[in-house]
């Protein structure tokens, strides 16, 4: 079975500063990796995904993530955050190439943007 660890439950950062949200995963097989964002009282929206190929993945709203197989990490970054980026961010993993049993999520990181 696969698992996901998000190392920080909360990350405060000043507006226009860079941010990195950390995600590590564990799996004995190849995986697909995802980052989702959840704004207050809303569902989850996909930010970006890694399926294969280039390890640097660009997503919506200026976010990007880098897949590092040796470190089993998939950290999310943004060079300059906005107040509107305040939200909960979830890293998720699924087995590549098969398996109907959904995505496994981390516990989430609350990104707090300070003016």
């Amino acid at each position, binding site marked *: 079975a696969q698992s996901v660890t998000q190392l920080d439950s909360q990350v405060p950062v000043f507006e226009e500063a860079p941010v990195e949200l950390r995600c590590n995963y564990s799996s004995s097989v190849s995986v697909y990796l995802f980052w989702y964002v959840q704004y207050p009282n*809303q569902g989850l929206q996909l930010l970006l995904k890694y399926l294969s190929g280039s390890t640097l993945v660009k997503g919506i709203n200026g976010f990007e993530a880098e897949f590092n197989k040796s470190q089993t990490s998939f950290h999310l970054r943004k060079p300059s955050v906005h107040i509107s980026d305040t939200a909960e961010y979830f890293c998720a993993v699924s087995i*590549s*190439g098969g398996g*109907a*049993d*959904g995505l*496994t999520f981390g516990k989430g990181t609350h990104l707090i943007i300070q003016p």
Partner: protein
Amino acid sequence: DAGITQSPRHKVTETGTPVTLRCHQTENHRYMYWYRQDPGHGLRLIHYSYGVKDTDKGEVSDGYSVSRSKTEDFLLTLESATSSQTSVYFCAIRDRSLSTEAFFGQGTRLTVV
């Protein structure tokens, strides 16, 4: 937005009563999922479906049952609600290829008093 509708959006119910939550999709996706979201736990899989009448248990299935009689509808039932089932419930869908992301509904906030 993916065509996923959850109903009701909010519900308050009493301990011991049965509750059914509905997920309706218009995307004709094969796979459907029910998750619950709780502070400090992220999203945890309750049950999932890989076709009409084909369902299986997830990580936190105790106290829940599901049914899928049509491709578009996936029902989650709490046979006898308990306070520990107070949570936000999300339905998600995924297409055949399994290489893509899951699309989520807006969630149902359930309070068991």
